């Protein structure tokens, strides 16, 4: 018992000492209060820094988006002029043959000029008439021809028809030409603006949805230019890129990750793949020029060459992403498969690859999105070109969306400014779509272990 009592005493003594050493913290003391206040302030400041960083990024994005959309949205609409067109049989089909070959050759431009002359009979001098014909685009006659080819009954009738306007009048209607400034310093003279105002009073000027922008190829007439040719060119180019870089990239990643021995050679390969991902894209263009054009004699400006060149550029991205995805598959899956008697190849093809596929696809799509926005390597292989015809295959001359943007941005005609912004909007829409697909695939097929 005495032991016990002495123990208790010791403990009591120890407690006194320890109480003296560890005085309870006085949480209300001014020093602690100051300290806590400082820590909270630091926390708040940190949050503010973070938020302002996001704010700056969002603001930049907003300003970019706003400037592009505010300049470009008007390109999706086009001014049309309503004119009374007399489909004169004597002009179109004098012998009443009804033969499309005869109708196709008719001078529809003349019909439009005729109706313009009838609408403004006071215009007689040659120079003024030339200005007058500028109200309607040179492309309107092709529309008119198509209309008559579709419906030959029009011949002989007089109809009110909406015709696509010339670019200067389109700019005037959209408010990009200021009618107030001195006559000598604007594209349209007072007389031309007078005609325009007369047409507006008649209700013969209208903005319509500009479907042609999405269906036609490039043109030097802003009102006739469209992005379809460039979009098709981008499609073929990316198709070739995908067909080449996806299998090669995935095979390389599988081999390096699952089969390759870890030795100096594979380390060198790995380091070089990572280096390749950082090589400026113009270098790939020079390589493409030398190998595909000068040695292999593939056609210039063809999407197949563009695709081959861009495939070199996207390969490292795909390999790196695929390796990360394959690495993320747990080893237990492989061990289980091997344990049940699967061969290494079966293990990879039946288990590892399917499980890694969402990650591989995400990497591939992001690589493709990069390739979609690339112009520099294409400059070297002749894809920066004026191409009117819509390419019918990967060997036809073609251009791509970012190159189209570059070419339009460099055109003197005022109306190409809005076309440029509109084409940027289309390119961004494709990029958002592709990145959205990547996010969707990841979310849908992602497995948590």
């Amino acid at each position, binding site marked *: 018992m005495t032991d016990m009592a002495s123990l208790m005493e010791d403990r009591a003594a120890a407690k006194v000492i320890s109480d003296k050493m560890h005085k309870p913290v006085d949480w209300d003391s001014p020093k602690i209060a100051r300290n806590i206040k400082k820590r909270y302030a630091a926390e708040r400041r940190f949050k503010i820094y973070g938020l302002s960083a996001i704010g700056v990024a969002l603001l930049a994005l907003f300003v970019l988006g706003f400037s592009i959309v505010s300049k470009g949205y008007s390109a999706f609409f086009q001014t049309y002029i309503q004119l009374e067109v007399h489909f004169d049989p004597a002009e179109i089909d004098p012998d009443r043959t009804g033969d499309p070959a005869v109708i196709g050759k008719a001078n529809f431009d003349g019909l439009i000029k005729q109706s313009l002359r009838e609408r403004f009979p006071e215009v007689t001098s040659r120079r003024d008439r030339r200005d007058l014909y500028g109200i309607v685009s040179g492309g309107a006659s092709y529309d008119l021809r198509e209309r008559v080819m579709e419906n030959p009954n029009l011949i002989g009738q007089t109809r009110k028809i909406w015709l696509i306007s010339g670019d200067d009048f389109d700019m005037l209607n959209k408010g990009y030409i200021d009618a107030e400034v001195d006559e000598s310093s604007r594209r349209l003279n007072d007389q031309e603006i007078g005609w325009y105002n007369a047409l507006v009073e008649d209700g013969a000027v209208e903005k319509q949805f500009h479907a042609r922008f999405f269906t036609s190829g490039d043109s030097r007439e802003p009102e006739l230019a469209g992005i379809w040719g460039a979009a098709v060119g981008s499609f073929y180019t990316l198709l*070739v890129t995908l067909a080449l870089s996806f299998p090669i990239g995935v095979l390389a990643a599988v081999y390096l990750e699952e089969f390759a021995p870890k030795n100096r050679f594979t380390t060198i390969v790995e380091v070089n793949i990572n280096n390749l991902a950082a090589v400026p894209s113009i270098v790939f263009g020079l390589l493409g020029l030398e190998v595909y054009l000068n040695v292999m004699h593939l056609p210039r400006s063809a999407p197949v060459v563009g695709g081959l060149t861009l495939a070199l550029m996207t390969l490292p991205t795909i390999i790196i992403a695929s390796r990360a995805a394959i690495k993320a598959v747990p080893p237990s899956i492989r061990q289980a498969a091997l344990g049940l008697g699967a061969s290494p190849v079966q293990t990879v093809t039946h288990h590892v690859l399917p499980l890694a596929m969402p990650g591989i696809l995400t990497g591939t799509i992001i690589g493709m999105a990069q390739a979609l926005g690339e112009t520099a390597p294409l400059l070297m292989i002749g894809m920066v*070109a004026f*191409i009117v015809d819509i390419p019918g295959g990967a060997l*036809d001359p073609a251009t791509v969306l970012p190159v189209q943007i570059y070419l339009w941005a460099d055109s003197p005609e005022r109306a190409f400014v809005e076309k440029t912004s509109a084409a940027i909007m289309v390119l961004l829409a494709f990029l958002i779509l592709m990145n959205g697909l990547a996010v969707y695939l990841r979310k849908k097929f992602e497995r948590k272990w």
Partner: protein
Amino acid sequence: MKKTLAVAALMSVAFAGAAQARDQIRIVGSSTVFPFATAVAEEFGKTTSFKTPVIESTGSGGGLKLFCAGVGEQHPDITNASRRIKKSEVETCAKNGISEVTEVKVGYDGIVLSNSNEAPEIDLTKEQIFLALAKTVPSKDGKSLVDNFYSTWSEIDPSLPDVKIEVLGPPPTSGTRDAFTELVLEEACDAFPAIAALKDSNKDQHKAVCAGVREDGAYVEAGENDNLIVQKLEANHDALGIFGFSFLDQNGDKLQGSKIEGVSPTFEAISAGDYPVSRSLYFYVKNAHVGTIPGMKEYLAEFTSDKAFGDEGYLADRGLIPMDAAEREAVRNAAMNLSPLSM
């Protein structure tokens, strides 16, 4: 198996329509001639049964290099140039088997110095432009050569406005810059005795002094995109810009051309040859390809027709300054007969 088929189907889509022999004219060359050549090509494609030619904008030098690489369908048929072909280039061509080349002069292009029309109009001489932009200028006493020390226009001549010298212009890779250097700086430099004296003593230095543009920020290389220069001039009323006449023509409500040697850069002044800073534009045709590539003659006929490069042709609407009728007639005849160039 299914996947293999799908890939095969995709590939066959991609390669369908593979062209056997080339049935389309291929044109390369100057970015200055590009807007005119494309307009002709489009009209040609629409009005004939031939395919629309493919036109690449490679710059005059790059275009001639591609053009002179050889005969055969993998080489371009025509190259555009904003300057005349050089003797060395003719020799390269001949070495590669291109013995006959037809030269077609298209018209003129004015290079303008321009500012916002809300700023006062400026009237400059070539010598004043040289003093504002050259890298090396004669010192105040005119005896030695020093780094350009002028920072405002009024320092050069009291009659000029008292604003900072700030000129936006194309980079050295551009044909416009070449022409500007040749037509303004190199012509003006010999007006200064200190520089003219170099001509006999040190030819290389003379050349470097005459063609050198200052790099201290007064001359801003604004890239090849002339629209960008136009936008910057709108925002900055003190700055001047250097670009082709067609951009001034399109933006007449925002910009004004500065007078050079007292002449404004107007359509009339350039075509009459009164405006001092204008150059000729050309394209060159490989005669060996005429007849092999379909549509070559017809393209030449379209380009040299009065409705294209004539006084009221569609190229004039785009800012090309046409030649006079007699010269056009001569060019047209030479083009249609494919008279080979001799130098």
